[in-house]
């Protein structure tokens, strides 16, 4: 049996799950850009003059292999020379060892710090670290901008703006629906503010890290949704709703927001989870330095 990259799994029966190769769905966005999904997670890859630039790796060795095969079948005769981690999470960037073991890995400095600490099997440590909020990239004839406005989701989350394609790519931030679950590792304090900051850029197409490609208007609707849940979650707490009971939060917030946001796919199933997570932000305060009013400066200090 070949050596299997197991991420942080410790169970001895992980092999079948990790090796399974999902069907990959590819859509061409422009002459040089494609978006690819395993049915839930989504990312991008681009054709450079002599090589391929790919974002992320998907979340298992099997999915990483399937991603590589799909990329190589789409762009023949060129190899994946650059991988850009959108953020540190294993379900997006955990298996570069399986996807492109010889590629340069680009990531934000805080993402790199977490990757080094984690020592996950299959997640390669970045070879080029970016510091700061805005990076004009020029890689093998491809030009785009990487943006880290501050903590949004995960650590060192980089979004990508492609001016030529009129497109923004941002992984696990705003979704085209309401399927946020318990909002894992979201940093609530500045999340919507940072997301709305992307509206200062010129783009029409939005590629999220999950589900379907959407547009600027739906992105704004997504920002409005999260902001509205923040407000109604506070109100639930203020009005003595037992915030630690899922059904109670679901009932209160769904009734308040159903008219405005019931159109979002998954609203009924997820609103209780989202509200339960968000109300704990106000109960507890944000979580750690990432979730404070001015986290950017503090994070730079931590890295130093």
């Amino acid at each position: 049996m070949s050596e299997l990259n197991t991420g942080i799994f410790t169970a001895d029966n992980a092999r079948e799950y990790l090796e399974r190769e999902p069907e990959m769905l590819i859509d061409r966005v422009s002459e040089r850009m494609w978006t690819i999904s395993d049915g839930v997670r989504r990312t991008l890859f681009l054709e450079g003059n002599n090589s391929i630039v790919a974002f992320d790796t998907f979340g298992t060795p099997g999915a990483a292999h399937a991603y590589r095969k799909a990329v190589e079948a789409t762009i023949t005769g060129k190899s994946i020379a650059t991988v850009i981690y959108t953020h540190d999470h294993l379900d997006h960037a955990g298996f570069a060892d399986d996807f492109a073991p010889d590629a340069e890995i680009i990531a934000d400095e805080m993402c790199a710090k977490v990757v080094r600490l984690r020592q996950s099997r299959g997640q390669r440590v970045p070879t080029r670290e970016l510091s700061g909020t805005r990076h004009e990239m020029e890689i093998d004839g491809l030009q785009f901008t990487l943006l880290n406005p501050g903590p949004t989701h995960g650590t060192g989350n980089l979004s990508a703006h492609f001016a030529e394609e009129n497109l923004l790519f941002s992984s696990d931030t705003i979704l085209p629906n309401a399927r946020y679950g318990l909002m894992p590792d979201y940093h609530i304090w500045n999340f919507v503010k940072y997301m709305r900051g992307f509206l200062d850029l010129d783009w029409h197409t939005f590629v999220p890290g999950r589900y379907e490609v959407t547009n600027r208007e739906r992105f704004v609707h997504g920002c409005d949704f999260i902001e509205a849940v923040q407000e109604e979650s506070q109100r639930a707490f203020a009005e003595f709703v037992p915030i630690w009971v899922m059904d109670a939060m679901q009932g209160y917030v769904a009734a308040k927001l159903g008219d405005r946001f019931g159109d979002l796919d998954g609203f009924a199933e997820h609103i209780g989870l989202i509200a339960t997570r968000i109300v704990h932000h106000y109960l507890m305060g944000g979580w750690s330095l990432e979730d404070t009013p001015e986290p950017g400066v503090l994070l730079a200090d931590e890295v130093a």
Partner: protein
Amino acid sequence: MNDHSEDSGPAQDTPCEHCGIFTLGGDIPIQGAWRDITYVPVRDNIWSVSEGIYRTVFLKGRKGVVAFDTLTTPGTARAYAAAVGRVYPNNPIHTIIYSHDHLDHTGYAADMAPDANIIAHDLCDKVVRARRADGQLPATEVFEGERKSYSIDGNDFELIYPGPTHGDGNIAAYFPDSKVLFMVDTVIPGVGYTFFPDWHLTPYVAAMKRLLSLDWDVFIPGHFWITDRQGFIDSLDFYDRMSDAAQQAIFDDLDPHDWAEVTKYTNQNLAGEFGQLFRFEEYCAMNLSRYMQQYLTGGWGIEGNWQQETTPL
């Protein structure tokens, strides 16, 4: 004992003068609401107080009181101070010790004892200062590293930071002469709290087990009732089992965001082992969902990826 006399504190539902990080504006009724506080002697100078869900401790000194935490809201902070005053009239709270940074435990020193000296771990105080929550006062004295001994107003104890567990700079208080350990939002009776908010699951169990190298037989948690050494061990075993269950749930293709399916899976697969635990019905599915995220995404942030420290204290 139950502190519910109407003359022992502010009137019910007084306006909220400190609002944490709420952005609603205006009065927030729950913030000012008065809560009945129960208080029980534990051992020696150690007392424990609770409003039913949250729990903390205070220590009788020669000249005043050392209080841990501030409870949950401005109203409960005032009720806590009133309860202390009921046990020890005319003994001011001169020292507050923050267990960790979260507002629901340490958010309202401004309402409880605004002139008290405040002790916290440096990692906690950094977050408190960055947060600038209305009512949460920064520490006046911080300590760094793992252990520091204190002798305050006739009380000898040690504050211990075993590593990242929950929140930031979360410390245990060890009373060696009384063989009592107090630590907040870690070991709690029953299953884990909701979705393990701000728990650092990678280093958590190993860090907590380090506290077993100390000599104590009473454990006071930050919620619900007081337990013992075996209750502490059983709680950590639950985390280990939840870790195994979460991995299996992933292999079984359960979607951690599909609440109906997670609930169904939890009831079918975990009720036999954990169904008798306190709050299984309310929280175990959320526990499972959160632990599944741990394996899917990796730990969260710096603290959530801290390597496990197993050296005895």
